[in-house]
């Protein structure tokens, strides 16, 4: 049953919220992967016809709760941000295919941009649990937008980058992908705006590094009914628009076709 409840809600940066809710399924039994998402209904009427997809940021197995971190930008996410502990929440998930952790990887790279950073936290956590070292290059527009830096610290070596240099390095995440930094890195995982994903893929493809991209397409249903969320994917020799809500949102970078 999708009906669950909000456990905690707090603003953690300028317009960015962290919400904890009781998982709508038994996380242990059901299983879940970093990079999967939750599809959250905005209100209990049908005025908001579309749910809002938010990525798993952290899972707490002991309490069977989930954390999402999101920017309240439009009408829907603002309504979600107005929900208080104890309020009912209609959530579907965990949905889609997330990031795969490859046992035996020595060192991997995480690249996050803006609100693409939160989904990498659960990944960092799981990588650490598998004994895989991670370098996380986390980019934000400006210092007041930066989130979760302390949370990453236990699991990854972190490089913070801001467009305006108000925190960490000044520049874009792609400015920090020099070979000397990526020593020993065998795989990468990226989540962020499409232009960033494309740039990251282009730079790292040249080095022959395999990786995963988490795509962000507007979703209708989130569960494979509408074909609203497709992205062109090259697989088995053909390029087809695949549903990112079912086959993704995470795809092997090599398969993702950018226009």
């Amino acid at each position, binding site marked *: 049953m*999708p009906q669950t409840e909000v456990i905690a809600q707090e603003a953690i940066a300028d317009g960015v919220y962290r919400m904890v809710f009781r998982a709508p399924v038994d996380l242990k039994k059901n299983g879940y992967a970093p990079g999967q998402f939750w599809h959250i*209904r905005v209100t209990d009427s*049908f*005025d*908001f*016809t*579309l*749910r809002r997809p938010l990525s798993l940021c952290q899972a707490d197995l002991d309490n069977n709760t989930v954390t999402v971190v999101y920017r309240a930008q439009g009408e*829907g996410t603002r309504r979600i941000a107005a929900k208080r502990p104890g309020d009912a929440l*209609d959530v*579907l998930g965990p949905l889609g295919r997330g990031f795969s952790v490859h046992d035996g990887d020595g060192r991997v790279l995480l690249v996050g941009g803006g609100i693409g950073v939160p989904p990498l936290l659960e990944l960092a956590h799981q990588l650490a649990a598998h004994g895989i070292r991670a370098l996380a290059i986390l980019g934000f527009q400006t210092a007041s937008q930066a989130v979760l830096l302390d949370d990453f610290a236990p699991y990854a070596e972190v490089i913070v980058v801001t467009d305006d240099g108000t925190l960490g390095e000044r520049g874009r995440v792609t400015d920090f992908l020099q070979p000397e930094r990526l020593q020993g890195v065998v795989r990468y995982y990226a989540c962020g705006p499409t232009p960033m994903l494309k740039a990251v893929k282009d730079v790292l493809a040249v080095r022959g590094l395999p990786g995963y991209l988490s795509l962000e*397409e*507007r*979703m*209708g*249903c*989130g*569960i*494979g*009914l*509408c*074909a*609203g*969320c*497709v*992205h062109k994917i090259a697989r088995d020799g053909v390029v*087809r*628009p695949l549903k990112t809500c*079912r086959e993704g949102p995470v795809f092997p970078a090599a398969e993702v076709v950018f*226009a």
Partner: protein
Amino acid sequence: MNSGEVDLRVSFCGLTLNNPVMPASGCFSYGREMKDFYDLNLLGAVVVKATTLAEREGNPTPRVAETPAGMLNSIGLQNPGVSRVVREELPYLRRVAAVPVIVNVAGTMVEDYVAVVEALNHSADLDAIELNISCPNVKCGGIQFGTDPTMAADMVRTMKCASRYPVIVKLSPNVTSIVDMAQACEKAGADAISLINTLIGMQIDIEKKRPLLGNGIGGLSGPAIKPVALRMVYEVAASVSVPVIGIGGIATGRDAIEFLQAGATAVQVGTANFTDPYVCPRIVDEVRSWCALHEVARVRDLIGAANPRARRVTDG
């Protein structure tokens, strides 16, 4: 009255449905996903995504946008093509659901439609076709058939000859006279009329200064369009003798009952599945409870109850 005593069955085109509620085309894919949410046998019937002759990629993204109490879509008939549908999708659906299956058929030219129907004739895994002459999302596509009564009639006649299954004709609301369209289709032999498909709409991304959808325009659906759909169903039910299937913005049992009372023999639910995947069985429950509370023993007695000129159409 006990809600267990309510007879929810309705029938049209020789099919008997256990209840009048079915998912609308394009909002249910082929059933693979929904069967994880509930037993598909709870549905009255299933209408699958538009099927074309060849595989189609559809339109560029973004393909969906939210609007006040509605949404826009510009999927553009993405589908695997009729041969894969017949081979892979329909047999699967038959296996997981013992309810009537209706295949929505689309194309660009009459010949395409005929070829799809002929391919479907070879399958036993469907019970009716729904002729989609009303999709706003294909450029030089079916839309013309859907706005001109003469072209629509020609198309329906051809389809009736070609198809061994009953032909439901799905109408576009983007016309001056929906009654002219419906009557032309009835005269040409349509076994039933379903309406409405989406209204043509648009949204603009004012920061980017361009239409939000990749395709520019899209089809408007959801509760926002319910009053338009209901008016058209009411008018058409009063002007044709074949069964009418009501579609547009249905999200609750009360909505479904409005359409039945307007003269619809059954209803289809589209967008509401995205808001709540459990909506179809919930609507069935709500209709059942309402009937019990109001001492309506047979749901078919509601058909046309608010529309004196409507023939109360149900085979039963």
